[in-house]
């Protein structure tokens, strides 16, 4: 079993839709949870990070962590074609990082 599981997609939505991206994990020791956005032929860009359980909002993006279910989500409101990218979740335990395989998102104009 992988440490972090993420649906690879692709996920295709119309512009303006609400997007939900999710990851599950197996290690209850994870404390930091991150979401990265990776455009084609670019390095991953840190979007948001949260510590422990709860929600965090930044503009159109909301990150949610449910440690009891070992489940994290990233919500994108009013999605734009510029949001089309691969989204990777990541988690940290004692300075070791574990990445999901990424979900490819396509927002159609």
């Amino acid at each position: 079993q992988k440490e972090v599981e993420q649906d690879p997609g692709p996920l295709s939505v119309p512009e303006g839709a609400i997007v939900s991206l999710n990851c599950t994990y197996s290690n209850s020791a994870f404390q930091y949870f991150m979401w990265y956005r990776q455009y084609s032929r670019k390095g991953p860009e840190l979007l948001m990070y949260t510590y422990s359980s709860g929600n965090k909002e930044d503009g159109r993006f909301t990150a949610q962590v449910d440690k009891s279910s070992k489940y994290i989500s990233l919500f994108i409101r009013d999605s734009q074609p510029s949001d089309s990218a691969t989204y990777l979740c990541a988690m940290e335990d004692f300075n070791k990082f574990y990445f999901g395989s990424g979900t490819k998102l396509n927002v159609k104009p």
Partner: protein
Amino acid sequence: SAVISQKPSRDICQRGTSLTIQCQVDSQVTMMFWYRQQPGQSLTLIATANQGSEATYESGFVIDKFPISRPNLTFSTLTVSNMSPEDSSIYLCSVDMGLASDTQYFGPGTRLTVL
């Protein structure tokens, strides 16, 4: 955050040769990491490079194949030695700023193709 640059951005190499990838950060950082990302796959950690000590390699990666240098707090190199087509991948360096938030920032990556 940190601004990270990598050189080269891409290269096409012949089997059996070696390529050295450079990673430069605009601020001093303790921990630098090297990852490999194959098409459609997640990031695989190759090694952690701390200044003043030997790099720590992950299972499946060895120093003879992927020697790493970390001469100071803003720079590191990764060499891919005796390359084969299986080494074709994107190689990424990243840094942990060591702040209250344990997060990593990535460079733009080096796209390597081995013929």
